[in-house]
């Protein structure tokens, strides 16, 4: 921060994963009606693009908020290893009992990346296709502790 100005660094990552939208709280017919093709029992996949931004002071010695190699290795470990070439329903614990809509994927990625120790996570944007995008910037401060 300087003079009330935020400087943020943005980075885009990609992963490919499959999912099926199906809620155990709904009947077969309702699932079909609500989720349409996305309810296909065998699932389907997307090439997801995740855009994140992190803010912080710019270190005068390096000109950086955070070294990209540190950010990339954290995201690789916390997000890409868990999501890339996986079935979101079967392979990611957070989606046992939770429908892996991209809204929920976006919040889950935020929950994982908010732990990054070297800068402040500002926002997560997930593009499911080039026509669908979802963004999450956390809740109000009093709720932020709950998501950590």
């Amino acid at each position, binding site marked *: *921060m*300087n003079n*009330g*100005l*935020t*400087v*943020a*660094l*943005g*980075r*885009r*990552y990609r992963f490919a994963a499959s999912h099926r939208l199906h809620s155990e709280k709904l009947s077969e017919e309702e699932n079909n009606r609500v989720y349409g093709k996305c309810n296909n029992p065998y699932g389907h996949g997307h090439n997801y693009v995740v855009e994140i*931004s992190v*803010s912080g002071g*710019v270190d*005068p*010695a*390096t*000109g*950086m*908020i955070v*070294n*990209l*190699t540190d950010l990339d290795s954290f995201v690789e470990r916390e997000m890409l290893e868990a999501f890339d070439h996986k079935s979101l329903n079967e392979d990611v614990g957070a989606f046992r009992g939770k429908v892996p809509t991209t809204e929920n994927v976006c919040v889950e990625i935020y929950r994982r990346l908010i732990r990054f120790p070297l800068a402040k996570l*500002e*926002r997560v944007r997930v593009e499911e296709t080039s026509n669908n995008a979802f*963004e999450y*910037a956390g809740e109000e401060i009093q709720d932020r502790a709950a998501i950590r």
Partner: protein
Amino acid sequence: MVYLTRKIEFSASHLYHNPALSAEENKRIFGKCNNPHGHGHNYTLEVTVAGEPDPVTGMVLDLKQLKEILEREITQRMDHRFLNYEVPELQGQIPTCENIARVIWNLLEPKIIQGRLHKVRLYETPDLFAECYRNGAGCA
């Protein structure tokens, strides 16, 4: 409030090197970006101005004016330049995306007198960008 964004592109070279650090430290921190002869990028700059449309013209500000400001302040200063050596505002700073975005903010903010500068987003590559905005204004 309406937000208006204009995009420009410029191409420039740079290198990352801090003379206060040893050669080994420079190499460790900056990696390939420490190559002494520099390297280049096609930068894309998105400038967002916030304001209320003028009731007579329907414009937040005249895009022609914004285009001229961007041409004069940014393109002429940075396009086809070696940022370390040819942009005085970056002297003494490592020309990272963060620092260039902040220099661009400082250059543009006083020039935009109709509406106000809301956000500057500078892409170094399609997958890497830095942005500047007033604290708390990031989501719009």
